């Protein structure tokens, strides 16, 4: 995913912001892959690129073996957005919101069948059936997020891209939504790409975890591996920075400085300038090192024979 930087009198394109750079990931059916990173690391851009809301500059997205770049399959994957106040059109009834995807993709049969399907969807996400005649402003944040989930489910996708679906919600409501997502996964065998910065949510929900920093994945593995035995210094710092109610007395890695601008990322390893363990080799961008069959990290500390 590259975005142009323009400069000069005629605004020639002189460079690119590599919002997402060389990212590869795969999600097995029924699993949750959590994409973790701080703001501006490109995780939302990645989600939108998968849905082809933003056309990727290069690369391939395969779904059950079928190439999606250039010929998106709209019913295969859907997205749940961050802000439930911005993701529902205030001028449409719930029924219209839920029906939109079905009619656009021409699925769900005739209008009676669609109405029945809408009723089922509302049952599924735990909303009263008569809410379909109401407008978004009549619902609370948590209820709106349920509507957004129902909308995504309306076209029976197999993969749900959840872009920080609980970060705008209060803790008590967040638990409702997480529960819903979890039971939907069990019931429907859904896969989730769960984009978040909240590590507690990751711990609770994810099977696998990818950690992103400035557009690149720096570490990936199963949730157990990445969260219990983080390898990359960034992952370690991230985990130790989360304030925890059980966190007294543990060793704290405090990062210096701020995230650099994605437009001008540091040369070599992007994390090197903030890394407490940076060394000379970090001037070159590290390749992925396999720690185990499922766990890999991009850091010179773990170079084979290094």
């Amino acid at each position, binding site marked *: 995913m590259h975005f142009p930087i323009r400069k000069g009198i005629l605004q020639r394109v002189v460079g690119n912001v590599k919002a997402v750079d060389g990212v590869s990931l795969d999600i097995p059916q029924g699993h949750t892959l959590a994409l973790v990173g701080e703001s501006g690391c490109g995780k939302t851009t990645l989600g939108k690129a998968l849905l082809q809301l933003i056309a990727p500059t290069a690369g391939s997205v395969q779904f059950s073996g079928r190439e999606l770049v250039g010929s998106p399959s709209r019913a295969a994957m859907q997205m749940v957005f961050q802000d439930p106040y911005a993701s529902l059109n205030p001028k449409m009834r719930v029924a219209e919101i839920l029906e939109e995807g079905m009619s656009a993709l021409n699925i769900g049969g005739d209008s009676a069948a669609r109405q029945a399907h809408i009723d089922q969807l509302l049952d599924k996400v735990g909303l009263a059936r008569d809410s379909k005649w109401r407008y978004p402003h009549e619902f609370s944040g948590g209820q709106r997020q349920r509507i957004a989930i129902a909308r995504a489910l309306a076209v029976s996708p197999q993969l749900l891209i959840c872009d920080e679906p609980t970060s705008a919600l209060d803790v008590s409501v967040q*638990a409702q939504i997480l529960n819903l997502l979890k039971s939907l996964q069990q019931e429907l065998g859904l896969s989730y790409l769960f984009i978040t*910065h909240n590590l507690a949510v990751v*711990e*609770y929900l994810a099977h696998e975890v990818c950690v992103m920093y400035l557009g690149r994945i720096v570490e990936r593995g199963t*949730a157990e591996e990445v969260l219990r035995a983080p390898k990359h210094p960034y992952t370690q710092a991230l985990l130790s*920075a989360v*304030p925890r*109610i059980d966190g007294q007395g543990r060793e704290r890695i405090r990062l210096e400085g701020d995230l650099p601008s994605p437009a001008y990322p540091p040369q070599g390893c992007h994390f090197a300038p903030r890394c407490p363990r940076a060394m000379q080799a970090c001037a070159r961008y590290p390749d992925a090192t396999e720690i185990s069959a499922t766990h890999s990290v991009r850091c010179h500390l773990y170079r084979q024979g290094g």
Partner: protein
Amino acid sequence: MSLLKVDNLVTRLRNGARIVDDISFDIAAGETFALLGESGCGKSMTALSLMRLLPDGVVNASGAVQMDGVALFDLRERDMREMRGGRMAMIFQEPGLSLNPVMTVGRQIAEVLALHHDLKGAAAQQRSIELLDQVGIPDAPRRVREYPFRLSGGMKQRVMIAMALAGSPRLLIADEPTTALDVTIQAQVLQLLRDTQSRTGMAMLLITHDLGVVAENAHRVAVMYAGQIVEQASREQLFARPLHPYTQKLFAALPGAARAGQLLSAISGSVPPLGSIKQGCRFAARCDQAWARCHEQNPEWTAVAEGQGVRCHLYGEEGGGGKGKGGRGKGRSGAAGFPFSLISFPFTLAGRRPASALPDPQRHPAACGRQR
């Protein structure tokens, strides 16, 4: 001797709805007092009431606030201005919006110095650089001449802190100071606040919705729900044994690895709209321990232990049914039968780890923030 003392504060909209309803608490010098609550519970309005900076259409209806023995609500506006930024300072949630975009960082700090320390010109400039240095802004002599848009979110919050410190306040009110920041930056800013507090001995009113932030920073905590304080305790007491059903639910709703296998104990429903509950406990509709009395009678404040109190009928002394119910409640909130024990966090096993063993963040700032 408490530095700030708030008594029965009521703040309401012009149309009568009470946003802050009968709140009392006090903060001692050098202490961090946390106001914990979800969005819209009135915690920010409480802070603005103390500063007498309520937005148009919101008024302080009753109550008293004593700051260093001075009754704030009796002050003339002119004298109140001396307090603001001088003896009590405030930092806000959105550092990006809270700094004047067209004024240099230095001038914004110098304004406070001129107002409260009569410091002007080169002296003010020098002091501004010192302050920026203190809050950990690299290259302070250059930054002091820059505009806020040049700084990152974390740096802006540091500038806000420097500005607050410029008046040498005795009390710092921090309204969700790290909510808009990334976790790694949040850790930096919280560390800075702890360091500053241990250096200057100021008191801090920390407003947050994050239990983790409370656990790592606060000495004492008040939990707010729908405009009221429903529970107040020391941090150790609260994390060892939360009393109010709402507080218990808040803990139980936290996601984490330990609960990966099962569903979270979510609080059903949502916060009632302002002023919609005329009688009874405001949490009753979402509480699974509520009974008839909870819907009829607003619970009184009950002191349960030294430093810990709660606004819940489960712990009420008076009333016929209250005793029995209260007993039941107490039994249920013990370490054994409470759903809380599902959590594998060490602090829940109160018997094994006495609350007093927790390090005091104020006295031992290095203990929880050592750099690797």
